[in-house]
């Protein structure tokens, strides 16, 4: 087998691929004022903000702030058999517990998304770990959020395995610039995490159709578990999805933002979380660097007489930022 040599920095630059240092130094540091970070790092705040802005988010069942509130869990959950427990300040999707259903009432045992049983005591322990800061940045004490478990739409059913596929959009100066769909695989254990083997599929900005994907930094055309082609899936309501992403930028004041959206069967697109330091793998998924698109946005914004609305911005992006080379 031929050695897979690294790519030269020159070629990467030519392709406009954004590196970690440039992302941190030129975009995050310049475009994202630190005082706005809590708005996205604290998912509870993000949720409130999004609701105020009229954006859809998974409904919040309740918040557990102290250890003695843990026993109110079943009261908070009510008669929902499915729910998600997550740390409000969790980093990188750590500490999220997805409950898929009730296995038995007495003793109270739930079922995790992986199908494994989990007793109420184990859930209580997980929550107390969240409260102690096991999953938060720097180990600071945290709060646990109990929220609606997304009923994911059958759209991606054929090209994902377990877990929830989500749509990540990068918004630059209020304009959606690039998007990808993250598709869980057996290898990623149902998680939409590219590091662990989930597939990242690029999305055509113009029409919202999936392109080919990338797994472990390699080009893939079919899902390894379902053997279905990844490209060609139409994401419904693409315009409104991009508008949502653009509005997130307005509501947080962040100029370089990752917006994670899931498609719910009944409720449509829901904002799952925002990220002030979005990852760079989206470039591999789209087979294109972010830089050229960002430069386009810069040129466009610099010649604007007035600020555009979210709808106008989404439309502009669809028209001007479609993969330029397909």
């Amino acid at each position, binding site marked *: 087998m031929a050695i*897979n*040599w*690294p*790519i*030269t*920095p020159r*070629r*990467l*630059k*030519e*392709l*406009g*691929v954004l*590196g*970690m*240092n*440039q992302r941190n*130094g*030129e975009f995050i540091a310049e475009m994202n004022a630190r005082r706005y970070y809590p708005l996205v790092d604290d998912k509870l705040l993000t949720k409130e903000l999004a609701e105020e802005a009229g954006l859809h988010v998974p409904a919040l069942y309740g918040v557990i702030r102290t250890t003695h509130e843990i026993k109110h869990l079943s009261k908070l959950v009510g008669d929902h058999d499915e729910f998600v427990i997550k740390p409000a300040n969790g980093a*990188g*999707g*750590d*500490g999220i517990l997805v409950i898929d259903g009730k296995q038995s009432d007495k003793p109270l045992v739930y079922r995790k998304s992986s199908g494994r049983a989990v007793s109420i*005591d*184990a859930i209580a*322990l997980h929550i*107390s*770990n969240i409260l*102690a*800061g*096991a*999953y938060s940045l720097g180990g600071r004490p945290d709060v646990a959020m109990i929220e609606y478990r997304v009923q994911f739409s059958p759209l991606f059913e054929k090209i994902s395995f377990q877990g929830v596929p989500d749509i990540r959009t990068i918004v630059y100066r209020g304009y959606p610039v690039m998007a990808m769909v993250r598709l869980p695989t057996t290898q990623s*254990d149902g998680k939409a*995490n590219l*590091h*662990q083997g989930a597939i990242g599929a690029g999305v055509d900005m113009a029409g919202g159709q999936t*392109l*080919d994907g*990338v797994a472990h*930094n*390699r*080009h893939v055309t079919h899902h390894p578990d379902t053997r279905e082609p990844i490209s060609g899936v139409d994401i419904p309501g693409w315009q409104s999805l991009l508008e949502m992403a653009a509005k997130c930028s307005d509501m947080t004041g962040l100029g370089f933002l990752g917006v994670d959206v899931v498609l719910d069967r009944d409720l449509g697109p829901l904002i799952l979380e925002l990220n002030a330091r979005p990852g760079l793998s989206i*470039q*591999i998924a789209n*087979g*294109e*660097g972010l830089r*050229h698109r960002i*430069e*386009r946005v810069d*040129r*466009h914004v610099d010649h604007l007489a007035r600020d555009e609305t979210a709808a106008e911005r989404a439309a502009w992006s669809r*028209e*001007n930022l479609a*993969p*330029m*080379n*397909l």
Partner: protein
Amino acid sequence: MRRIHLLSVVFLLTLVGLSVAYYKYSALGFPLTPDRETETWTVEAQIAVNPGTAPASVRFALASDPPHYTLLDEGFVSRGWGLTTQSSDRQREAVWTKRSPEGNQTLYYQATVYRDQEEIQPSSYPGPAAPPKLEEPLKSAAESFVEDIRADSADIQTFATLLVKEVNASRPNENIAAFLKPDANETERTRLAIRLLAIARIPARMSHGVMLTDEGRNLRPTTWLEVHNSRRWVPINPQTGAVGYPRQFLVWWHGDQPALTTSGLEGVELTFATTRNLRDAMETAQLQSTIAESRLMDFSLLDLPIDAQNTYRVLLLVPLGALIIVLLRNLIGIRTFGTFMPVLIALSFRETQLVAGVVLFTLIVALGLAIRFYLERLKLLLVPRLAAVVIVVILLMALISIVSHRLGLDIGLSVGLFPMVILAMTIERVSIVWEEHGAGDALAQATGSLVVAAMAYLVMVNAYVTHLFFVFPELLLVVLAFTLLVGRYTGYRLTELFRFRAFKTLAHARRPTPPGDDR
């Protein structure tokens, strides 16, 4: 704008750091490398006195500010004699006095000198010499002699050289034969040379000094000639006319008078003894800068108590370790647990040595992880679980020490120097990454941390590096400048060239439409 600001800060820091270090190196003689030795000389003047019955006093000229050399230290041994030192312009003197001396005695004066300058320091011009009053026909003979030499010479220095050569010629010029007794000694010839130089209005003086020889005994002072060339005193060998002092000539006093003036003594004899010694270059530099009263030295770490010094020897390396972390993370792209955890691990490697350190670290983390996974099953709360891991880590450390001691491996004892809380936190982090992102990620980051720690260790343990940063802590400003520079590096990391290599083949990763096309 921001770029220029940063670059000027970087430039300023580098400039200050390097110039202070250079000054300390070149002017104060701080060694760039450890264990350097410098040559110092101990010169001992022995004054043997044979007092009479009257109160005695001995005035002795002391070396002060000799050319090429610096006086590091001096001392007097003179039991029972009163001692004062006084200095008039450019000459220091020691005065010993005793009311009723008895028997032969010896007074000692000891000085330690160190050759530190190649150039002779400039000194102000004393003004033209007053010509000596001479009777005819001597006057015209001397003047025509001087005229002859002036015709052959280019400047003061060559004039003096030629003149000295003539004075020492085996068949002296007839014009000066009258001035010179055939058996004239060195001092008399030098005295004549000074008088003749005065006719040409050239200021000249006699100097006396000692040839430094290792284990030299019973040395007598040698006379030398100095002429002022309007910038500095230039030494001339009074026998050959050669310019400059021999390398190991230490000037003791100037002028046409003996070093000793005594009263109330029946006999006195002055001899010198010299020895060469090697001395730690650091020590010499320190002494020298104290003498030079350098303000810089008021802020030296070398003045701190020894144990504080030792602390700083280690502390000053932390910035260097931090710099290595910055390089490996931002330029190479190695992922580590915790930002500066590897530096702390590297510091503990200093005690355990590298291989043993890596082995012990891996051992403890692996065992700790196993225990941690077991504790996970017990479903403990976070803080008690962390505390349990700390306890287990300490038990493991003790166990390793005991077992390795039993086996006769002393290296296992140094495991106690590992920062156990850091170890416990590392174990906790590894296990969370392991659970959430899989074993691959956890092992990759753990290996990354170890590699970074090992590299930081290799730099920090280097004797030259340790020495350099301890003696020249201002070099940390350069490290700071470099760190600031890296802080604005926005190019690719080395690992990204691997991460993004899919772009080589990605079908749709073609050249983008040229910029400017705004559609």
